[in-house]
């Protein structure tokens, strides 16, 4: 039940109510007159939308491209995935069966265009599958409302005696557009595939999608580890063939009860190394609750970019030479036992193959050639750390255009190639900068002089040398002009105490007679 323009109306009715002659949009008073014992509840559009989106997420098991069509529809792009079920009919039957298990009654239709599928599902025969290019005859007997028009527009078309879309299709385009407006023409074109239609897919449609279904639901941790490796290998092989790599992988575990917890792994550089990715997923698999079992695992690769240069490991044939020990040079040879060597040359990044080199092997060959420092070779480490600790805990400092000390350094993604430098080398900045300056008690001969003695954390430091002041004002242009004041300044001094400790202290504000100066310690130079 909903309230529209001050009138209580029925928002939706169930089968039993429909049999009693009630319909959506009926006034509540009329309905109550017809059926006094009517059991009604308040409509919750937000909850309906959330449920629809949850259903859309669930539908990802059928297709990676799902668009919720509020208030009660779902559009699935099944191009190229229906063969996984053995045809469109089988896909539709499975879809209907699974939704039915969840207690959801549906009307399904499959057509070339979203418009035609919508029209057939809402006004045509349930379960229609339009053959490619054959929707016009199927659409012809449908009413104009099937075009997803405004109710008034559809009603007007019907008032003019055009009860069937077939009649509408026969009218020449120009008079049709003039008479009924561009919207009608556009909807008709969209339904017939003459105009494009953009759908807001719930997830970005990625062709890089893999799916593994199991005859029996799985739940053992080792099984989950194995299937995650298998599905990664399947998708990475495809990425490899296409010369692509992805920066984000999302793995969804579809449980028997319809829930689909998902995991994602991000990479600093596009990658497609299935083993590496499996290692990144492995610690996260524990967090997936398999419930009563997982029947389908899907994996999609996002942010796919061309990835040139294969990541290969070049192995030298085991050397049987008598040289024992290790030799160093541009090439690093293995020792007499024949462990493999690692070559490194510009333009290629080399990764060790873990099959040959177990992790606990303490006798791994090391790499000595430092000529080339490639950012890509650091990517595995950065990815491991970022996925283990969280992306916000791994960073590279980058300069930010601000003269306020605590804002001058920002966190940049470790391998984003952010512009570096840019700090003024002539301005002394401490090695340790406290997030909050600490209050100190200062003895200064005159308020404008550097301190001669200060007490910090309970210890008295006698200043032997000092440098400054460097006056740093607030960024007045960032706040309201009324809040700005010339008194919001800090006079920074670099001071050294008798033992050599170097501190960065500042006096806040301008000198005012009768006001004791406030001093703070902001950093340590070390």
């Amino acid at each position, binding site marked *: 039940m909903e309230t529209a323009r001050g009138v209580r109306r029925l928002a939706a009715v169930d089968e039993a109510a429909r049999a009693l002659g009630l319909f959506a949009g009926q006034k509540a008073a009329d309905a109550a007159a017809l059926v006094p014992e009517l059991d009604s509840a308040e409509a919750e559009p937000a909850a309906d939308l959330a449920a629809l989106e949850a259903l859309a997420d669930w539908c990802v098991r059928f297709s990676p491209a799902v668009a919720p069509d509020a208030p009660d529809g779902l559009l699935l792009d099944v191009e190229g995935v229906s063969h996984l079920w053995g045809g469109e009919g089988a896909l539709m039957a499975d879809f209907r069966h699974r939704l039915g298990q969840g207690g959801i009654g549906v009307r399904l239709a499959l057509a070339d265009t979203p418009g035609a599928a919508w029209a057939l599902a809402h006004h045509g025969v349930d379960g229609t599958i339009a053959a490619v290019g054959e929707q016009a005859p199927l659409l012809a007997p449908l009413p104009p409302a099937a075009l997803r028009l405004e109710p008034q527009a559809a009603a007007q078309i019907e008032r003019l005696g055009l009860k069937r879309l077939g009649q509408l299709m026969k009218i020449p385009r120009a008079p049709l557009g003039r008479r009924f407006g561009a919207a009608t023409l556009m909807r008709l074109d969209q339904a017939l595939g003459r105009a494009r239609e953009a759908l807001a897919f719930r997830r970005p449609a990625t062709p890089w999608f893999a799916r593994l279904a199991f005859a029996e639901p799985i739940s053992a941790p080792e099984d989950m580890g194995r299937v995650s490796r298998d599905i990664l290998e399947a998708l990475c092989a495809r990425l490899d063939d296409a010369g692509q790599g992805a920066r984000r992988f999302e793995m969804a575990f579809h449980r028997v009860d319809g829930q689909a917890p998902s995991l994602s792994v991000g990479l600093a550089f596009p990658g497609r190394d299935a083993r590496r990715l499996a290692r990144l997923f492995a610690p996260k698999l524990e967090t997936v609750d398999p419930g009563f079992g997982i029947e389908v695992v899907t994996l999609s690769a996002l942010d796919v970019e061309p990835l040139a240069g294969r990541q290969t490991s070049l192995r030298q044939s085991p050397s049987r030479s008598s040289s024992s*020990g290790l030799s160093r040079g541009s090439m690093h040879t293995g020792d007499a036992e024949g462990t493999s060597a690692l070559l490194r040359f510009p333009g290629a990044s080399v990764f060790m193959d873990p099959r040959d080199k177990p992790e606990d092997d303490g*006798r791994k060959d*090391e790499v000595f050639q*430092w000529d080339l420092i490639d950012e890509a070779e650091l990517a595995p*480490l950065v990815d491991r750390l970022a996925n283990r600790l969280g992306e916000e*805990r791994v960073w590279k400092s980058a300069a930010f255009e601000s003269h306020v000390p605590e804002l001058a350094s920002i966190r940049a993604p470790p391998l984003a190639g952010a512009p570096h430098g840019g700090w003024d080398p002539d301005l002394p900045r*401490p090695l340790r900068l406290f*997030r909050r300056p600490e209050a100190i008690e200062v003895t200064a001969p005159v308020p404008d002089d550097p301190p001669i003695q200060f007490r910090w954390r309970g210890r008295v430091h006698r200043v032997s040398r000092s440098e400054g002041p460097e006056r740093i004002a607030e960024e007045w242009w960032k706040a309201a002009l009324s809040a700005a004041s010339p008194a919001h300044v800090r006079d920074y001094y670099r001071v050294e105490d008798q033992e050599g400790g*170097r501190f960065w202290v500042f006096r806040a504000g301008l000198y005012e007679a009768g006001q004791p100066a406030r001093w703070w310690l902001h950093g*340590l130079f070390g």
Partner: protein
Amino acid sequence: MSDFRAGRLDAVRAKVAALEAGGRGDCGSLPFGDARIDARLPGGGLPLGRWHEVTGEGMEAETAAAPAAFAALLAAPLVRRGWAVWVLRRDDLHAPGLEGLGFPPERLIQVCARDDAEALGVMEDALASTGVAVVLGEVGAVDLTAGRRLQLACEKAAATGLVIRRNPFGAGSGGKAHGSAAVARWRVAAAPSAPEANLYGEVVGLGAPRWRVELEYCRGGRPGAWLFERRPFEEDIDGTHPLRLVAELGDRQLAPPQPVRAAG
């Protein structure tokens, strides 16, 4: 000593070094460029492919400013060979300050760990990764097992580790570690700088930062104490070590003054 004897001795020394390194050659060393310290270090310089411990005293156990500055300058020449990773517990490392010291922050990846165990795990992972030349970590204490693991990780990719002993939140006492697996332990304290007089004969401001550095322990080397200064930036071009040795200090000079009590 006869040549024969010297030769034999050298051969035995090499054998012992090879045994200590677990069957692999040593990863070289990085000379400071001053015989007063290089002569005391095994291989004539800072041993690479191992991990070192850098500690401070007093307040430095909590803030670790001077040890961090010294460690950054120890690591600065290594950054030319690969990446640096700095594992923090408390995010107060200021990149402009690092650049001011002469350490390139654009080659540094910072990682903030939640506790000591995680910090050590990250250090281990980073040390064993290709492309990483030096890993600095701020850790409260390294026990023998963790130290041994760090050493194995160092050997994997010939990276050098620098553990800066620090309890950033003031908990625990930064006491001396007994039987550490580190190759060397450096105790660092800030020392008063010596600014030069300007044209008018006045001494204004602060000079280049100085540190009193005590090598408390070094495998294959001899302990000592020195006064280091950040070398002027003009001299950095020709690949010199950024640390300049100012003076060698007497061994006893750094010992904390013992209160003398008259007997009776």
